[in-house]
């Protein structure tokens, strides 16, 4: 009888010990992820213009925002207004650029993103009110002053994509 009681007590103790040591693991995942879907490429349709316009042979940069928390983030996308890399230029550059929603994972929840966006100069601000993925494409054109020819060399400009917690 005593032996059975001791075995039962040890068994219960082991159960208790196991219960106390069960680990709880968790990983905090990002609620907003910025993914560069496509890198833009400048085409040179004439001597004084660089453009990402696909009809001129360029390629629009596309950025994807993945959001898992609705009404928690703004997407701010700024088209370039200067070159980050270029040869020395003989004149000033006039920049134009715009951002548009390219695709979306939830047409119902995200359908109003484009109409509700706020444009501040070269920056377009979107209120990410729905969860899911949204793709944004940004056009950029740089025209060298006086219709002067761009010197040969490599030109890089940055599109800045920001995901800002509300």
């Amino acid at each position, binding site marked *: 009888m005593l032996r059975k009681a001791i075995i039962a007590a040890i068994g219960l103790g082991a159960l208790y010990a196991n219960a106390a040591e069960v680990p709880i693991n968790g990983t905090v995942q990002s609620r907003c992820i910025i993914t560069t879907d496509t890198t*833009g*490429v400048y085409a040179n349709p004439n001597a004084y213009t660089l453009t990402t316009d696909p009809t001129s042979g360029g390629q629009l940069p596309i950025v994807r925002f993945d959001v898992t*928390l609705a009404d928690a983030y703004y997407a701010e996308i700024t088209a370039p207004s200067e070159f980050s890399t270029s040869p020395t230029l003989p004149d000033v550059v006039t920049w134009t650029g715009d951002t548009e929603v390219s695709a979306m994972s939830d047409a119902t929840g995200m359908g109003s993103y484009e109409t509700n966006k706020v444009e501040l100069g070269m920056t377009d601000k979107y209120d990410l009110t729905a969860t899911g993925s949204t793709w944004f494409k940004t056009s950029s054109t740089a025209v060298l002053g006086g219709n002067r020819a761009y010197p040969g060399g*490599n030109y890089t400009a940055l599109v*800045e994509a920001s995901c800002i917690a509300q």
Partner: protein
Amino acid sequence: MKSLLFTLGLLLAINVKAHEMVPTYPEWSRGIYPGVLTTTMEIFNKRNDVEYYEIGVFDKDFEPIYFVADYKVFPLKHLSSISIDVYIAKENKDRVEYICSRSKIIKEDRSKTAVSSRICSRFRS
């Protein structure tokens, strides 16, 4: 067939170019020195075109606020993460609104538009 799917999945995973940062809503805790507050941010680099990131602390108008961290620009290899301890003076606590991480693009021999990604976490009062 399984190996083909695995290879395809691996290729897709390698091709992902994402930037992540947690937590979304950080909080300050007391630092090791009096008058100093600290918080820890974790940044993930899934961009194979980016090797460096920069961290900054800003007010509500995105004006920079002085802070201390081991590195403000730091290397971060593809598919790796880093924890950064950020320290501020206690008197700046109410001014701080955002901590942002931004990708740094390396010069390349192509005419292109690169994407600089920036994620900003917010302090809620």
